[in-house]
Structures are given as C-alpha cells and as structure tokens.
C-alpha cells in the first residue's frame, strides 16, 4: 500500500513538474470538496481593509436534509470589548501579545453587505448575524447531494494584530479568518461555535479560487498556488488556487523579502523581514525539509505543492507561530542566534499542523489535543530524529529534552479536566494549554516508551491512511490504537478521556540481617521445652512496599533494585487494577540499598518521579554532589564578579 502511495506520488510529482504546476503534489481530489469558494478581494493598504465578493457553492454531503447553513464571522471577535473572545482573553491578551489600547485601529470586523442567490436575487433577509457567527436560512430544504450557491459581498477591517489576524499599523497585513466561512455539519449536528480565546478552528474541505488586488509593490503569500499575476497601473491582481484545503489565508507586505527552496516537489517559500542572514534563511529551510522528510517517512505524504513560511515583523508578533493550510507563520526573531533552535522549532511545529490540522481537520473547538497534542509529540521527534536537536535547553552539562519539558508542565498542572474537553470549558488557560499541548505529548511519549516506538509509528501511519481529510475524532484515533494493541488503546482512552492520574511511590524499603528463629522448642517426649537464643544468620531479608497513587497505570512497570555491592536486579511490577499497592518480601545474600520504580522514566505521566526512589541505607556520596557543585559555582561567580 505504501509502495502504491509512493508510485501515485511520483506520478503526481512528474505530472505537475512536466505538464503544469498545480496546488496539489498528489493528484486529487482527496476530499468531499464540500464547497467551492471564489473570492475577489481588494486590499486598501492604507486602511488595512479588504472589500470582497464571494461566490460560495456549498454542497450537502451529509445524509440529512438541511434547512440552514451557519457561518463564522471570526473577525467580529475583534469588533468590541464585550465579545466572547475579548472577554475570555481578558480584554485582548493572548499568546504573549495584547491589544494595544482602545483606538479605532485596534479593532476589526467583517461586515456582510449583501447576500444574493444564484439568480442574483437579494436574499439578505435570510442572513442573520449574531456577533461572530451568522445563520443563513435556506429558501428551501437542501437535500443530500444538492448544492446551493450564494453571492456574498463583505468588508473585512483588520485589527492591529495581537491574535493571529491583523495589521502592524504600517505595511504588514495578515489576512486570516477574514471571510464568512460555513460551519461543519459533523456527527449529526452543526458545529459552528463562537470564536473563543482558547479555541482555534474547524471547517470543511473545499476548493478556493481567490483573486487579490493590491498595490504592485506588495509581496503576497497565500494558501495554495499562485496561478498568475496581472498588473494594471499601480495595482496587481494575484490569482491563487487551492484544492482540498479547509481555509484560505493570505498576507501582504511591501517590506517582505523572499527566498525559495524545493523539497521533493514541494516549493518552500520564505517571506521574511530584512535584513536576515543566509544562515537564518537556511535554518528555516532545513527545519521545513526536516519536517517534510519525517512526515513522509513516518506518517504519509504531503499532498500539496507549496508551503509558505511567513516571518511577521517585530511589531506584529501576535501573527507569529500560527498554522494555516500550506502557509504558516514563524516567529519574529529568525536571526541565526540563540533563538535559532526556537525559530526552527516553531517552523517544525507549524508545519506539523499542516498534517494534524491541515490534512486531518479534526474538530479543534472540541478536541484541540488531536491537533496541538499530537503535533507537540511529533515536533519533539522531528527535532531529535531529523533535525538533530534533541534538547530544547542545553547549558554546560545541563540538558532538558522535549519529553522532559512536557512531563514537567503536565506534572505541575492540576488534573482537573480530561484532555478531551471543549476548548473554552477548561478550568483555566493553563488547563487548556497543558491539556492541549504537553499532556497529550506526554501521553504519547509514555506510550512510545512503554509500548515501543514501532507501535506509535504504526498508529500514526494507520491514522493517516484511514482518516486523512475525514475529520477524525478522539475515538477514531483510539480505535486504530485498539487494532494495534488493546492495552495501549485502553491506556490512551483513560489518559485522554478521564482525569485518572498516576504517581508511583516506594512507600517503604527495609533490608536487614536474616534472623535465625529462637526461643522455646517443644520436645515430643514431653520433657521441658529446650531454649535457644534468636541469632543473626547469613544473608539478608528485604521488604519493599510499592504504591501506585491513581489508576492510570500501564500493565507493568520496571523496578530497579540496587544492592550493597553495586549489583542490580530489575523486577517487574504487574500493577493490579483493584489493589493499588504491592509488598515484596524476599531473601538474598546481599544487602538491598535502593529501590527505584521506573528507572528508565518510561511512564512520563507519573506526577512525581522524586518519590519513585527510596534508599534503605544512607549513601552520603549521592545527594551532596549537586549541592556542593551548585553552591561552589555560585560562590566563585560572585567572588570573581566582585573581587572582595
């Protein structure tokens, strides 16, 4: 099957390179193509405003008759201070950026100015706007497989960017979530939630033809493939085409510079700020190629022919670190410096989203972990396996790898919500963040270490094969895991859909000289009992009590026993579902000095690793090491900085 996929890909690449360029690298269609959206947009670069007309052909691919189509008007989340988005983001503070004051240019909106049907009749009265969502009531019920056409005129005023969409007050425009976008009829109901501070997006696949007219000195990047450009006086129209994508985004700046690279039929384009060193540009391309290579080998082929990386300017950091189909934004500091790993990591992360969100298009409103969480896991693997950066922090001999970082964040966040929770229903922003990113990454890291990397690779590959372009849900992912290993699936299910926890603990460990029993011994002949003193015998008796606090345990966990002579023995604890502890009692000729549960740190979901070890005897040559080294370093640094 994989060979077939590669042949199809090869043919696709050959066709697209020899005959004509296309938005797709693998010939489509890959999806139901629920809609075809044709937009003609004109940017007023001074006002950061887009005037557009949109022809939407929407097909009912469900098996029920529909009476209405709900729409998102995401930009309206920025229209007032009392929108759900603004209130939830504490007046406009999100992702490390915030709204800069209350001036008019800090706000934005999308206003639908007219709605006509296919015949050109005005049907505006059927359009009802309610903040950042709207509903179009159909003139007659839309039967399965029937299509409806709407001509919608709208104006999108970009806000000063602090959360993904907007302008920088100068020449940079990031035009995201800018047009009326239909909701998704999913699992028997419409999913068309408001724009929440903690949620991203969910929409149907379709094709886009978008014509963007703006001043000729602006460079434009957009979802899909640039078909052609036509200039008239000082304006240029850019014609973009995108197939089998669920969103269309574009950016324009007269200050952009451009660099391009190729990887196996994918044109990677970097729109960056100037000046930017060659090393930094290469670093971005290396990161992008490392992502594509890893995904190609471990998950599946990237179906599109383009990927645009956009570096927002410094005063538009809020647009950075975001993913859209075939276009992602990186961070503002791409310079080849101490930030280079972070810059590469962000790019790898955002390109990963082109799989977990771009290709799978899971419901990010309600199951954000399926995008952010799986992506955080694969990002760590790409960084270490393909990009060659295992550690996210490295100073002298101190290092922190990605699984450790995710473990720490997970362990430090109280487990109050299941991972699978609607984005706006978590107890706090930290709850959303950990449960969407670090905890699912930790769950998958645990699965990788306990059940093996091969099984995770099988899972990801099978998930791609079966659910690419099909809006999978949590249970679809778990169902595939079940086919590979039922115990792995059970673990995944518990970890993702419940608030079960795990914290292994060595409750006690005792090791002492074996006692030869003594006391009275009764004789058969009825004479007086004989007496012998209890004595210390040869060898040692050990007693170890292990406890699991919480129910989220793998089928078994290793326990490392270290003896006085330095020898070790690894035993397995088959944790019982009903009894949360076990007691081991045995004898040997060596004294036990230490017990350590999970010595290879496989169960990264463990809330506290520091209670996994217990010493029977004090070993003074252990814990002083870091204390003495740490204080010595501090003292010397202090003395040399101020020679007193």
């Amino acid at each position, binding site marked *: 099957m994989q060979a077939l996929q590669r042949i199809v890909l090869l043919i696709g690449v050959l066709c697209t390179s020899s005959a004509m360029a296309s938005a797709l690298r693998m010939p489509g269609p890959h999806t139901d193509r629920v809609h075809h959206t044709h937009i003609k947009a004109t940017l007023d670069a001074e006002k950061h405003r887009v005037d557009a007309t949109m022809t939407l052909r929407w097909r009912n691919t469900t098996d029920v008759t529909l009476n209405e189509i709900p729409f998102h008007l995401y930009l309206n989340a920025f229209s007032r201070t009392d929108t759900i988005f603004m209130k939830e983001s504490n007046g406009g503070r999100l992702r490390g950026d915030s709204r800069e004051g209350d001036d008019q240019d800090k706000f934005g909106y999308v206003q639908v100015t007219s709605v006509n049907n296919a015949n050109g009749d005005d049907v505006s009265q059927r359009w009802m706007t309610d903040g950042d969502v709207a509903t179009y009531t159909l003139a007659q019920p839309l039967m399965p497989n029937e299509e409806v056409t709407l001509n919608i005129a709208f104006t999108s005023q970009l806000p000063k960017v602090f959360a993904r969409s907007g302008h920088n007050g100068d020449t940079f425009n990031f035009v995201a979530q800018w047009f009326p976008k239909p909701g998704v009829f999913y699992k028997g109901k419409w999913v068309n939630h408001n724009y929440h501070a903690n949620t991203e997006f969910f929409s149907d696949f379709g094709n886009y033809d978008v014509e963007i007219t703006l001043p000729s000195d602006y460079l434009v990047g957009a979802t899909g493939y640039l078909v052609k450009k036509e200039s008239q006086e000082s304006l240029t129209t850019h014609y973009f085409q995108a197939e089998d994508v669920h969103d269309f985004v574009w950016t324009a700046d007269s200050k952009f510079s451009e660099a391009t690279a190729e990887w196996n039929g994918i044109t990677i384009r970097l729109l960056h700020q100037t000046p930017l060193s060659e090393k930094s540009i290469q670093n971005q391309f290396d990161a992008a190629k490392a992502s594509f290579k890893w995904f190609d080998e471990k998950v599946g082929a990237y179906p599109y022919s383009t990927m645009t990386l956009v570096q927002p300017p410094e005063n538009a950091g809020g647009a950075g670190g975001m993913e859209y189909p075939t276009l992602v934004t990186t961070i503002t500091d791409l310079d080849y410096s101490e930030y280079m790993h972070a810059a590469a990591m962000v790019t790898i992360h955002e390109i990963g989203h082109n799989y977990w969100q771009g290709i799978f298009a899971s419901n990010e409103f309600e199951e954000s972990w399926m995008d952010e969480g799986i992506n955080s896991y694969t990002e760590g693997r790409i960084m270490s396996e393909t990009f060659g950066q295992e550690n996210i922090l490295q100073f002298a001999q101190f290092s922190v790898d990605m699984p450790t970082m995710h473990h720490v964040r997970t362990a430090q966040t109280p487990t109050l919500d299941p991972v699978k929770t609607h984005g706006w229903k978590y107890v706090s922003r930290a709850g959303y963040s950990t449960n969407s990113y670090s905890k699912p990454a930790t769950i998958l890291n645990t699965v990788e270490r306990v059940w093996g990397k091969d099984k995770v690779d099988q899972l990801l590959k099978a998930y791609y094969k079966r659910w690419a372009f099909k809006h999978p849900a949590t249970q679809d992912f778990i169902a595939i895991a079940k086919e590979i290993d039922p115990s792995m699936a059970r673990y995944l299910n518990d970890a993702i859909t419940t608030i079960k926890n795990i914290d292994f603990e060595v409750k006690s460990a005792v090791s002492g000289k074996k006692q030869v029993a003594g006391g009275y011994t009764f004789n058969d002949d009825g004479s007086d009992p004989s007496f012998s003193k209890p004595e210390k015998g040869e060898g040692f008796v050990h007693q170890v009590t292990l406890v699991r606090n919480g129910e989220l345990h793998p089928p078994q966990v290793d326990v*490392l026993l270290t003896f006085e002579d330095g020898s070790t023995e690894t035993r397995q604890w088959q944790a019982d579902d009903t009894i949360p502890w076990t007691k081991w009692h045995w004898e040997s000729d060596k004294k036990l000095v230490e017990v350590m549960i999970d010595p290879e740190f496989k169960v990264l979901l463990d809330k506290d690793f*520091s209670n996994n070890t217990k010493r029977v005897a004090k070993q003074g*040559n252990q814990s002083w*090491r870091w*204390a003495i*080294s740490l204080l010595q370093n501090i003292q010397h640094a*202090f*003395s*040399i900085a101020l*020679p007193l």
Partner: protein
Amino acid sequence: MKNTLSLMWKMKWVAVATLFIEMLILLPAYFVLFRFGEKSLAVNLAVTPVGSSEHITLLIDAISNNPAFVYGILVLVLALPLLFLSKMALAAGTMASAQQQELKLSLWLSNAGRNLFPALGLFLRWLIIPIVLCGLAAVAMSFTDGTVKKVFIAVLVIAWLFSLSWFSFALNFTVAREKKALIRGFGVLRKNINRFAVTAAIFVAIGGFIKLMDFSYFSANSASETGLGFAIAGALMLGLATRLLILFWQTSHVEGWRKVTS
C-alpha cells in the same frame, strides 16, 4: 609585578582564612540543600547523571512536591548579605594589613572590623561609577547588533573592571583614613593605567580558567564513581585558587597605590 607577588605571598594566609570564613557563612545553605537532597532528591547517579534530563526531572518534581529546596535557596539568599558584609570587611582589612606590610591574624581581623563601615560608605558612593559607565555601555549594546554588539559587550566588561579598579584604589585611601578617597582613587588609577590593564588581563584570564575548572569539577562530581574525598579536595582547591586570584587583585592595587603616594 614582582612586588605584588611578594606581597601576595606574605598575605597568603588571608586567602585561606577568608575561604574558611566564607564556607562557614554558607554552611547553613550547604546543610539545608544537602538535607533536601537526602530526603527528597534520592538520585541514582548511574541512572540519572547530574544535569541529565532525568536528573532535571527529578529535581523539578522534588522541588514541586517539597518546599525544602525553596528553604535552601532562602537560606542562601539570607546568607548573601552577611557574606557580602564579611567580604567587604575582610577586603578592607586585607588592604590595611597589606599597606602595613604585616600580617597578623588578630590585626587583620581588627582592621576588618574597624574599616567595615568606611568601606561600606565608599562602596555606596562608588556605585554611581559602574551605574554610569556600565549603563552607557549597556545602552549602546542594546542599540547595536552583530559584531558591534560584541564590541560593546567587551566594553561593558572593561567598564566593570575599570570601575572595580577605581574602587580598589579608592579603598586604599579609605583604610588609610584619608579624605576624598574616590577622587584620589581615580588619580591613582589614571597613573596606574598600565598596571590596571595587566592586572585586569591576568584577572580575567585566570578567572575564566577557574570558571572552566568549576564546570569540569561539576562534570567530575556528577559521575557516580567520584568519591567524597575528591569532591571536598576539589572544592577547597578551586575555592583557594579563587581567593588567591582576588588577593592578587587586592595586593596589585595596594602596590599601585603605594607607588603613587610614597
């Protein structure tokens, strides 16, 4: 330089005694952090070498689940003002004894006690100098990039060393109970600019080497087969090397002062 080294050799026990006093002041912090390590951070160095991701995991989990580490750091923070005051007093005592070319432990400690407050007063007045010099370098650094930024980082370091040298020359006047120590200290520095350059270069080179050795010591200490004897000997030797380097700085400034004022 010969006179400096000769004076330094005369004062060698100052380095040993200062090291001992500093260790005593930091002992509670060592003790609390050691106890925290014993109780909460039971590490098996064969499995979790110091600095590894697994070790960091244990450390953070132990800190999160037990406040003892925070107490250890708190003890360290509380010890720092005492450490600073002791260093200031002992440095003033060292300067006074070096001026007298005589080292008697009782006299050195007596000089330290007598000169603590004058030295502290000088230090507070002197603070304006590094604030201005280093502040300017830092501002220039923040507005530049690439190689120019690196140049300004070097300027920042030089500005700090220059300020320290100024303070050390001025301290000579303070412990000699002479007025206008800061102004006169600058005069001595101006006439000893070559000495400053040589002393600062030696100080930075050896100081950098000691910091490198510190990291090597950290690495060696982190290996499970390293013994307690090596750790204590290593800590003492590196501590002593640091104190000798500081003594070199101090005696060099006494010699410079003597050359100009005698």
